């Protein structure tokens, strides 16, 4: 049985000054898999996601996405840092959804979604327009195409942000606490879109505190603490019968 690996991180280490934000973090995610990363605030979850799409530069270790080394080009035994243009090319295959949505405020919902495919991938506008409209319908916002982000609720903005990531047709989407900035009653509309996306076979890494979502959608759950990957395993096992006492404690604390 050979499953196709989309993300492979080996001993990823990240320092901020003398502070170790990531300490030899390793993770492997197969195609179509949903991995939820849980852990207390400040444990390095965001930093790890940001290393995967090079918003943060790691100090040691390596990450492969689709078998391509992230951030470096290997020549013999030398690793050469890649150029800005190369970095941008690598990021095209990796979508990202942020806690604070980060929609472009000067563009409408539809323009936000079309921006990447038209101005980065240089696809024909007509094709992209059609695809973007379909995506808006798919995330339940078919009637909001002409709205600016400031005219949308948090939940609607986040759904547009997910559609923006999807329209690039990425092989992987990273979610950094996508529902943490939302009013409680808006959380489920975003989680529903993510469930739909997971069901369609998208490979996803989701940093979240929504253990219910993790239980029902994730294949793998990873628990991080203090920059370390404490425990990784099948969702049911990590959430129901964790091996590490730290994981037990954290899950108990989240459930309150």
């Amino acid at each position: 049985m050979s499953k196709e690996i989309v993300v492979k991180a080996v001993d990823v280490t990240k320092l901020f000054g003398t502070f170790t934000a990531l300490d030899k973090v390793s993770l492997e995610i197969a195609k179509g898999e949903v991995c939820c990363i849980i852990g207390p605030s400040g444990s390095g979850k965001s930093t790890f996601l940001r290393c995967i799409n090079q918003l943060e530069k790691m100090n040691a270790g390596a990450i492969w996405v689709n078998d391509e080394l992230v951030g470096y080009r290997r020549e013999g035994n030398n690793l050469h840092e890649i150029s800005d243009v190369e970095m941008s090319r690598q990021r095209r295959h990796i979508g990202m959804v942020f806690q604070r949505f980060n929609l472009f405020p000067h563009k409408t919902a539809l323009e936000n979604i079309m921006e990447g495919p038209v101005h980065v991938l240089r696809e024909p506008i007509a094709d992209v327009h059609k695809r973007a409209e379909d995506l808006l319908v798919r995330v339940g916002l078919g009637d909001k195409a002409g709205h600016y982000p400031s005219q949308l609720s948090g939940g609607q903005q986040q759904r547009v942000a997910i559609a923006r990531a999807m329209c690039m047709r990425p092989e992987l989407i990273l979610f950094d606490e996508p529902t943490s900035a939302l009013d409680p009653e808006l959380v489920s509309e975003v989680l529903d879109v993510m469930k739909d996306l997971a069901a369609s076979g998208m490979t996803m890494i989701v940093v979240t505190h929504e253990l219910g979502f993790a239980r029902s959608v994730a294949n793998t759950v990873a628990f991080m603490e203090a920059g370390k990957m404490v425990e990784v395993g099948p969702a049911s096992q990590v959430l129901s019968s964790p091996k590490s006492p730290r994981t037990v404690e954290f899950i108990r604390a989240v459930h309150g």
Partner: protein
Amino acid sequence: MTMPAPQAASLDQKYEIAHLTLVPKRHIGRMVTAALVLAALAALVRAFSVGQIEWSYVRDFLFAPAILQGLQSTLVMTVAAMTLGIVLGVVIALMRVSGNPVLSSIAVGYVWIFRGAPALLQLMIWFNLALIFPTMGIPGLFEFRTVDIMTPFVAAMLGLGISQGAYTSEVVRSGLLSVDSGQYEAARSIGMTQMVMLRRIVLPQAMRVMVPPIGNEVIGMVKLTSLASVIQYSEILHNAQIIYFANTRVLELLLVASFWYLAVVSVLSIVQHYIEQYFGRGSKAVSASM
């Protein structure tokens, strides 16, 4: 109205206000100030009308060919110097925030020098550049005499535009800093290169912050072009001076020039209003007022 209790009758009377008359607050201070201002204005108008001003001259010269040609030169210089100023301002600001220590130092030095010397002085140095560099060009390839290219127009454009660039770069920099870091991350996450990100995402948002001060600078530049009169650039003030040296109607021609400056600035203020609305699209403050 229901009576709560007998002993509350007198209190109820106190809270009965329907029959009372409302007397608005008297703004005595405001009225006095307004009266004083009106009186001062009246005195000023009278002084101008009975003073040594021949209004027929003002009327006649308002559309004189030399004045209109001067007006045109003023507008051309405003556009030329401001365009140079904005281009330099954007480049210098990008160098400053680039994170490249060499470029950043050059940017800091540029602002230090060109903001440090008066614009009039810079203009005169450019005009007299031939004293330092008698010829310019690439030796062996091409070469020309500096006095031939350093015309009043070129000297004024360089002097005004380059010093403007120093100020505008600070406006652009504050605009760049006003854009949320999340915008840079979102732009990168959809695979934008540095250049595309600046052009499509960062600068359009920075514009919202940059337009009011840059509008201010354009208006300032309209008037700053009058400095070019000292190096014989034939803008409106220079031409007005030439006329009054001949006919000695000094004040009349200065008023003619003032009229045109005021007219141009008024039009620009209206244009600025619409530009601000355009770049404010999508922002709450503006969409609420539209």
